[in-house]
């Protein structure tokens, strides 16, 4: 399973009615709300063993699965 598949599985656990693979304005269009976002951040922290900092909680980083994967990679490169 590659990283994107893993991410999509994690996201599907939070909201199985959202097509995370193709949505590109999850936040801007209000597809996900504050409860979803809190759950997504907690799920990403756990699944990818990272700690997303408040400063990175920006709409741009959560508008699409691709953006979230980039954020995860930035932590993997030793950001923390």
């Amino acid at each position, binding site marked *: 399973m590659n990283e994107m598949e893993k991410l999509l599985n994690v996201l599907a656990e939070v909201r*199985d*009615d959202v097509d995370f693979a193709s949505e590109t304005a999850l*936040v*801007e269009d*209000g597809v996900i*709300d*504050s*409860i*979803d*976002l809190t*759950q997504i951040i907690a799920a990403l922290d756990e699944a990818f063993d990272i700690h997303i900092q*408040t400063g990175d*909680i*920006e*709409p741009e980083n959560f508008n699409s699965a691709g953006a979230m994967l980039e954020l995860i990679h930035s932590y993997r490169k030793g950001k923390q």
Partner: protein
Amino acid sequence: MRNVLDWLEAAAARAPQHTAYDQPQVRMSWSELWQRAREIGSFLAGRVPQQCPVLILMEKSPACIAAMMGSVYANCFYTPLDSSMPESRMKMIASVLQPAFVLCDERFETAAKQLVTEEAVCVTERIPASVHTQVLEERRSRHIDDDLLYVLFTSGSTGVPKGVSITHRSVIDFIEWACTSLGLPEGCRFASQAPFYFDNSVLDIYSTMRMAGSLYLTRQADFLFPKKLMQTLEREKIDTLFWVPSALTALANSGLLDTGCLKALRRVFFCGEVMPCRTLNLWKKALPEADYVNMYGPTEITDVCAWYRVERDFADSDSLPIGHPCANTRILLLDGEICVGGTCLSPGYYNAPEKTEAAFVQNPLRPQIREIIYKTGDMGEWNERGELMFLGRRDSQIKRNGYRIELGEIECAMNAVAGVEMGCCYYEAARERIVAAYTGTADEKSLKASLKMALPKYMVPDEYHRREVLPRTGSGKIDRLQVRREVEDEYPVV
């Protein structure tokens, strides 16, 4: 003063061009709101009798406020509904409320037509721009201040939401008290956090109307992103906040509050859940000159019945008082339970006389005369300074992000799912998680999916545990405390 519309008309006369309610790309002035509300009122008056429920299924927007005020012009009362709640819960609410009419946005038209007959639904945008002055005057002349203004639905422990009804008189009394006691200036500018179906919005909407100020309808997405939220508050020159503590805590924890930020902000008010002193101290450090007021009150007493202006320092670990009763409000502690009476009191739960009788009771200390008090279910005590302190709940009601949730309503929904024999849930406050435990054959995933179809999102449990048995108390009820102990023994919280 008998009608909240007197404020709207005064604001439209005094500050016609001044922004009333706005959001990005949408702005409605006081005169525009006045005009549109009368158009909607004229339309409704031609279709429904007086003092009928009007259900409002609209996005939080200036147009939604116009629909609310339009209902009032028809001398009806309004119920704003959370448009994201599942259809089954909407239907449950509609069966209690029996709305005479539904005003909706275009995107909710199909959902609205599931609730009432098609003729009783109208997309608000399509209401023509015509005012029938004579009809409106006739309706106005019949109005008394005891007429209902709104009914807001709140979680019910038996699974059916309760509609708290509130009269014009209660809102008039509350808002006049608030504007004076909180020192709101003419033209004040609020940033709204509360959804319109949550009673904290009553202070937002009507105190700005009373002071001919303006209410900025903050985008919900802004609350997810502290930087965006700070930019919004700066850009809009917001001078007053009335938010749930969890929203203020999120901003405080972002580390973005600093001396020199939010220069226009003068007043920070909070209500809806316990305010942690740690959060208060972070705000005070960044904005030492602002006024901080803690408020307390269930929906049944018109938003707020007690208040405490922060005048001394508190340690992070202290509890903040909820203070003193508002004007025309009586607060009693009966066996430690906070009971409230006065002008703020709701006449009861709409179309639910038994629920009303259980919670709205005769004051036992005044047997000589009929005096009704509301038993809040909150426990309290007076401290040595004579200030009221909140101690917690006596039942299984919880607060999550300010939302009032009866665990019993979640359990009812669980028990209705095929494959669940018995459901139980508890709230883990430290991690802000609702944990569900159940017996039966249903798997965790399908249970969650079913609950999403039955409950508003903020009520859906975060964690699921299938158990062989659920422990019971001596009286045969599920023992929530013991369930929690067993789950936590097995899955220790790190």
